[in-house]
């Protein structure tokens, strides 16, 4: 019996690692630009679908490259043409615009690839078993990739000049600009990283589940729950949040009907917003 739960836990960690990727990308944009990019989910979905398309002509491992590059262009483009002009207008305007963009991108996806489920067509991988768990090769690859990405991010933030500038900008955008930090470059870096992580995560999750047009939105809400858990703007908090959501979701299947699996993330969102809107990891005081 404990094995059953342990297996669910393992599944949860695998899923959580991917959610962590999504959440980190979302929270980085929030940290610097102070708004939730609703279209982040579509970056995930487009990453997955473009890889599907390129994998018709390229080996899978290579197919991810052009698809990620295109998604990065998409990420930078959405900032340049839509979000940047609206930055002064207030968070609600940005939110509505990003909802509109996400609707546009989601329907473009449906237009091109249709509403049916798609898959990468890997053979049902046989699991490697060790101890009493079963972990498939795909799942191993997912976790490994996630770890690599996050590790590189850690190195970037901690040891490079760009990383330090990013942290400064997240802390105080105006002050960072006065100190001479090039905000254009920061913006480019943030959107590149965000899109990169989103598309990579999209491919990874596509390896384990089916592709369908709503996958962007579903994963966005999970990423958002993770961002909230960790405190909006807090990168490592988002990581832990992602893992938490993955684990709770998968363990929850033991108790709730599977149809409500996605609702777990929603419930987390609502609960956090009601009881600890600043997340589990931050300390803020101030005006009522």
């Amino acid at each position, binding site marked *: 019996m404990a094995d059953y739960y342990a297996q669910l836990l393992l599944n949860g960690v695998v899923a959580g690692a991917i959610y962590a990727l999504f959440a980190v990308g979302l929270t980085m944009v929030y940290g610097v630009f102070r708004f939730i990019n609703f279209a982040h989910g579509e970056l995930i979905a487009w990453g997955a679908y473009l890889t599907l398309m390129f994998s018709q002509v390229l080996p899978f491992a290579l197919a991810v490259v052009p698809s990620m590059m295109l998604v990065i262009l998409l990420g930078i483009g959405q900032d340049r043409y839509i979000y940047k002009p609206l930055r002064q207008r207030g968070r609600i305007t940005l939110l509505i615009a990003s909802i509109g963009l996400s609707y546009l991108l989601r329907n473009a996806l449906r237009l091109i690839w249709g509403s049916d489920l798609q898959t990468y067509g890997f053979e049902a991988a046989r699991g490697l078993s060790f101890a009493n768990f079963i972990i498939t090769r795909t799942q191993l690859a997912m976790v490994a990739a996630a770890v690599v990405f996050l590790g590189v991010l850690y190195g970037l933030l901690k040891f490079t000049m760009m990383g330090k500038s990013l942290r400064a900008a997240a802390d105080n955008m105006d002050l960072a600009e006065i100190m001479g930090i090039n905000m254009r470059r920061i913006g480019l870096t943030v959107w590149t990283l965000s899109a990169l992580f989103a598309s990579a995560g999209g491919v990874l999750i596509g390896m384990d589940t089916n592709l369908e047009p709503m996958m962007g939105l579903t994963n966005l809400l999970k990423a958002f729950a993770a961002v909230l858990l960790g405190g909006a703007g807090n990168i490592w908090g988002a990581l832990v949040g992602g893992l938490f959501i993955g684990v709770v979701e998968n363990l929850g299947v033991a108790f709730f009907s599977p149809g409500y699996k996605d609702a777990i993330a929603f419930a987390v969102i609502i609960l956090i917003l009601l009881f600890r809107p600043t997340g589990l990891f931050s300390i803020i005081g*101030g*005006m*009522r």
Partner: protein
Amino acid sequence: MLKVEKVIKRFGGLMAVSDVSLELGAVPITGLVGPNGSGKTTLFHMITGFYRLDEGRVYFAGKEITRVSPHVISRMGMVRTFQHTRVLPFLSTRENLLSAVPAQRGERLTSLFFRPSEVRREERQNRARAEEVLDLIKLAPLADELSGKLSYGQQKLLELGRVLMAGPKMILLDEPTAGINPTLIRRLAEVLKALTTKGIQVFLIEHNMPLVAELCDRVFVMDSGNLIFSGTPAGAIKDLGVIEAYLGRADHAA
């Protein structure tokens, strides 16, 4: 009328307001002065319910208001303005004034649908009062302009007008003369003096020292969150602690 007892407000490790106690009621106009960052506006926020106190109590007209919501405090008769004008730019001058009457009949849904004549009557009364206030602050010609189009000084007067519409017992003004020209300052001073004849208490944060000396019979001085002086304006000018607060400590070289 107002009693503040040992109130403290911390932000993280910073003591914004540190153990301040004061009482108002003896004189009609009281001033609150001090260098920038001394905690004056923070104290106002604490008194009017916008900030939660970390320690201490506040009493108004005999009732404790320490944990009371800002809108309730406003309805009890303590009305305030903000440091930078906060008129509602997309409402007209008149609408700004009309919205300032605290507890209107027409703000209750049941009254809207089931007691329309009472709502109409009260609205008529409020409109008449708004006309009076418009005359007092001399903004009648601009009554239907969007208040965002008024000059800064006119907006400050409008804020004062709003405060008057609320029929207050006590008003707290946060730097009402900042950034406005001398003529408007005169007008404001006249309005304030006229108010006190109606028994309204005024508590005033100001940097304009001559104005404070002219209007206030009593003044409190704050520095770095502490209350360092309480007395007449004349006395404040001579007090060593006050001078040091404004000019900095003399450097006692060995």
